[in-house]
């Protein structure tokens, strides 16, 4: 009774909103999700532009890049630094966790909003400010920070070394603000998922996407603290002249590396888990099968999360850490490939015997499994400290983490966007153009990074902006591979406008979508597309798990979670 009353009042609010209140000052979780999604996509374009400029410099050194001009060494450093930072902190995080977390959690657990709607709005606004501060760092004296996205001191700490007196500080402030935004968001996500589930939804009835986003938020909360402390210590080193990371004054530069990677490695899983969650939703829906071993997936995820706190020093094998410590971290690092491999097997087992339909989201989900596998397998070479001494700081490392991050941030995002687009905007995207976009993106991606594996194995060092000064690396064979990678990037970038046009055109002109176009079971498909303010006309109750496909005694091959019979 009380619930339905509050609900009416809520729906009433909606009609009095003006344009500003609706699109910018909204506390509605779906609008905040769209704000995060569009901001993330815009910054994704920025990060892609950076990659375009520095890849052109590598393939065609010291020739003016169309749309940029001549790339200096300092420009190059600023571009690679901010490409990494933007893609991880301002694209992967806001899109995978914040946009999808905001959109999916209340809908999938069957309630009307987040538990703290105003905190949610504040989280986006702080995120927006952080993006603006990052942009501002390009406009200050000396230009943007160019000390790599890992910001190792002493290079990041002293203006005498990096020659950018203001860029590093603005960069650090932007990153710290971004962390605050996601801490607020994460507390909201976890509390909402714990407390606001529909009546009847027990722990094992929660869709995997929600579990994954929640576990990712907890991992983020548990790992980011030391880096927030470290960010302020580094800021004081830069601005006040303290010596936290300065060995001449009793500090220790390796301390930064510990603080950074104690966060940095769990961060990989923070962005990986939501993508794994989307894949679980999609492959069950498009193979019409129950998720194989739901509880195993869940426990494996939690195990991965715990283990991810004990692998960070594999980033520091050549930083001068004790070799005995390197042995321990080699073991933990190789161990963490077990749960991830298990996850891939479980997904493949889900597909086995299903009636598979290659819809666009399914293509992306399958590509995710295939491509991420390459990233995972090459990680074993780097996790073994002996091999890592050779591979460290080569393009092999660059190719490896792009084979993990590209499936996560780009393929994962495309799978999620194409799957939930009908729910978000109430219309369908054009399937043919989406398939064209899919194939060219995937082929282009492999064309970029397979040559980089070969370059890295040939000893190509990743921090060089003009190889003509290094005769042993400036051979025609190696240069051909660099050109191949860059041309592949150009092909991949050239197809992205097709997706963007499809995305925005379909928002207004696409085929209208019904409430449950994929015949899926989870609760977000049981409300109208797009969901109105307050989401559900009658708040649902839950009777079963999320993946009850092809139940033997039913006429339909799906069985919505809220259907009593």
């Amino acid at each position, binding site marked *: 009774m009380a619930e339905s009353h*509050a609900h009416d009042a809520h729906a009433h609010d909606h009609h009095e909103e003006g344009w500003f209140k609706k699109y910018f000052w909204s506390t509605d979780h779906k609008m905040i999700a769209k704000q995060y999604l569009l901001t993330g996509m815009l910054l994704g374009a920025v990060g892609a532009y950076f990659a375009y400029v520095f890849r052109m410099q590598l393939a065609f050194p010291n020739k003016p890049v169309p749309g940029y001009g001549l790339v200096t060494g300092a420009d190059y450093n600023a571009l690679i630094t901010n490409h990494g930072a933007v893609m991880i902190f301002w694209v992967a995080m806001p899109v995978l966790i914040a946009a999808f977390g905001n959109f999916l959690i209340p809908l999938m657990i069957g309630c009307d909003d987040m538990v703290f*709607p105003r905190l949610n709005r504040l989280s986006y606004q702080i995120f927006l400010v952080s993006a603006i501060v990052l942009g501002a760092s390009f406009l200050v004296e000396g230009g943007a920070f160019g000390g790599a996205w890992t910001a190792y001191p002493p290079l990041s700490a002293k203006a005498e070394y990096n020659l950018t007196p203001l860029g590093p500080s603005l960069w650090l402030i932007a990153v710290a603000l971004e962390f605050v935004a996601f801490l607020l968001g994460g507390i909201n996500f976890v509390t909402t998922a714990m*407390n*606001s*589930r529909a009546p009847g939804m027990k722990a094992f009835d929660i869709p995997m996407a929600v579990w994954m986003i929640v576990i990712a938020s907890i991992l983020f909360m548990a790992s980011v603290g*030391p880096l*927030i402390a470290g960010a302020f210590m580094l800021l004081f080193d830069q601005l006040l002249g303290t010596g936290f990371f300065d060995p001449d004054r009793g*500090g220790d530069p390796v*301390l930064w590396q510990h603080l950074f990677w104690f966060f940095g490695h769990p961060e990989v899983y923070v962005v990986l888990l939501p993508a794994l969650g989307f894949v679980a939703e999609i492959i069950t829906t498009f193979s019409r099968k129950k998720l194989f071993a739901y509880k195993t997936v869940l426990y494996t995820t939690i195990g991965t999360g715990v283990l991810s706190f004990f692998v960070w020093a594999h980033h520091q094998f050549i930083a001068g850490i004790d070799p005995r410590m390197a042995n321990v971290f080699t073991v933990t690092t190789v161990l963490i490939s077990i749960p991830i491999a298990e996850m891939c097997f479980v997904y493949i087992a889900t597909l086995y015997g299903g009636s598979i339909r290659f819809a666009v989201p399914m293509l992306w989900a399958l590509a995710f499994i295939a491509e991420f596998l390459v990233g995972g397998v090459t990680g074993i070479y780097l996790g073994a400290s002996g091999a890592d001494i050779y591979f460290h700081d080569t393009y092999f490392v660059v190719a490896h983490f792009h084979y993990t991050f590209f499936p996560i941030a780009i393929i994962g995002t495309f799978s999620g966007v194409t799957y939930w687009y009908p729910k978000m905007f109430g219309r369908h995207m054009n399937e043919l153009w989406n398939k064209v976009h899919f194939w060219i993106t995937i082929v282009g991606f492999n064309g970029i990074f397979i040559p980089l594996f070969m370059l890295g194995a040939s000893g190509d060092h990743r921090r060089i902006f003009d190889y003509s000064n290094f005769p042993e690396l400036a051979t025609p064979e190696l240069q051909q591979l660099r050109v191949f990678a860059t041309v592949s990037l150009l092909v991949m970038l050239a197809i992205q406008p097709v997706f963007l046009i499809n995305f925005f055109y379909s928002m207004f002109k696409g085929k209208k979508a019904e409430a449950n176009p994929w015949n899926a079971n989870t609760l977000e498909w049981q409300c109208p597309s797009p969901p109105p303010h307050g989401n559900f006309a009658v*708040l649902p109750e839950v009777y079963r798990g999320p993946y009850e496909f092809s139940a033997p005694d039913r006429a339909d091959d799906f069985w919505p979670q809220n259907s009593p019979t």
Partner: protein
Amino acid sequence: MVKPIATLRSATGVPTGRLAVWWVIASEIVIFGGLLGAYLLHRLGHPEWATYASHTNTWAGAFNTLVLLSSSLSAVLAHNAAEKGNGARAANLLLVTCVGALTFLVVKGFEWTHEIQEGFTITANGFWSFYYCAAGLHGLHVIAGAIIMLFVAADARKNQELQRVELIGIYWHFVDLVWIFLFPLLYIAK
């Protein structure tokens, strides 16, 4: 603003506000944990920091410990009053807690002024850098806690949102607890 139904539900049985405060505290523990962990490792590697630490004023620190612990008592009494529905009394007790916070900050102000005049600034050496960072971060939490408490007290006086008296109390105990770690690490260990 009307609260969404999501806010009113409680699948765990723990009220949503309290659950969220515990998560805030969990994330704060990691922030302070990172800073203090870094300090401890440095301190173990630099025995000479003990001589720098001998310049801190243990008595001022001890007095501030007493002040903070007493202010926690009034926060508990405020919670007790709020439970009984006595908003005005809860508001007054929260104001007493705020006076404790203010006293703490004034003592800190005198301490820091004296230390800076002696030349022990944040750049003097590693110990003093950690000292000002850790105590400063804690001080920011004291200030933030006191400001939130003023808002909660204003609501409580009108008998609104009385559950928040407990929530700010939980947070305040956490701020106390951090100081209980800082005091021995920065003042007593010499």
